[in-house]
């Protein structure tokens, strides 16, 4: 049986949205898929050596909040200074309590499993990002490079 292929485009750079690409890629690898993730725009944050990702309740009515705050806390007040760091702290604590893997760990597992990580060169240039801020073992390339693999893939996800 020919090896299946999974291609993912990761476009989001918040703590919550950082999980799906790495969870799916690492699991696919464990199932024998050849896997590639193309990181573009805010998704590039997921390739930084120092991951300092945040989660925000702002504009996210689906986010469960502590003490049922999503039911009674005025939406406008979620924009208050400090809310984002508080929510990020609580989310990280909850994840640790529930045995959810840390992002660094999942990312390492992906690299160990030879998931190919590709940084969008255009975005790196656009935001004047420093290539040395990114982890080792990644590739810098463009959209055509993504299609080279995605065109042959069995599953292609835009996250």
């Amino acid at each position: 049986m020919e090896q299946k292929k999974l291609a993912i485009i990761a476009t989001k750079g918040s703590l919550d949205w950082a999980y799906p690409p790495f969870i799916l890629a690492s699991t696919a690898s464990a199932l024998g898929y050849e896997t590639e993730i193309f990181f573009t725009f805010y998704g590039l944050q997921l390739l930084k050596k120092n991951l300092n990702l945040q989660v925000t309740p702002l504009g996210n009515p689906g986010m469960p909040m502590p003490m049922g705050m999503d039911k009674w806390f005025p939406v406008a007040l979620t924009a208050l200074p400090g809310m984002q760091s508080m929510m990020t702290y609580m989310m990280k604590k909850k994840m640790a309590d529930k045995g959810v893997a840390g992002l660094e760990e999942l990312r390492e597992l992906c690299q160990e499993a030879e998931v190919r990580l590709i940084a969008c060169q255009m975005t790196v240039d656009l935001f004047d990002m420093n290539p040395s801020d990114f982890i080792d073992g990644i590739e810098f390339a463009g959209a055509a490079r993504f299609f080279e693999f995605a065109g042959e893939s069995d599953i292609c996800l835009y996250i």
Partner: protein
Amino acid sequence: MADFDLELDASGLNCPLPILRAKKSLSGLEAGQVLHIIATDPGSVKDFEAFAKQTGNELMESKEEGGKFHFLIKKA
């Protein structure tokens, strides 16, 4: 529970870690050897069924005992 060659305690770990750890443990085994996995993630029951089906490794046993899930997987 039948004999096994290696035990992996994935208690307290959540998706996808039990599967990833199991995959790693299996890669250290010879074909025909058996891995015993202990997990607490309720999702792992369906996940190990799916893992076995897709990787060709045989899920010999899957059961719940004392609030934990036990799986025996024979390496293909």
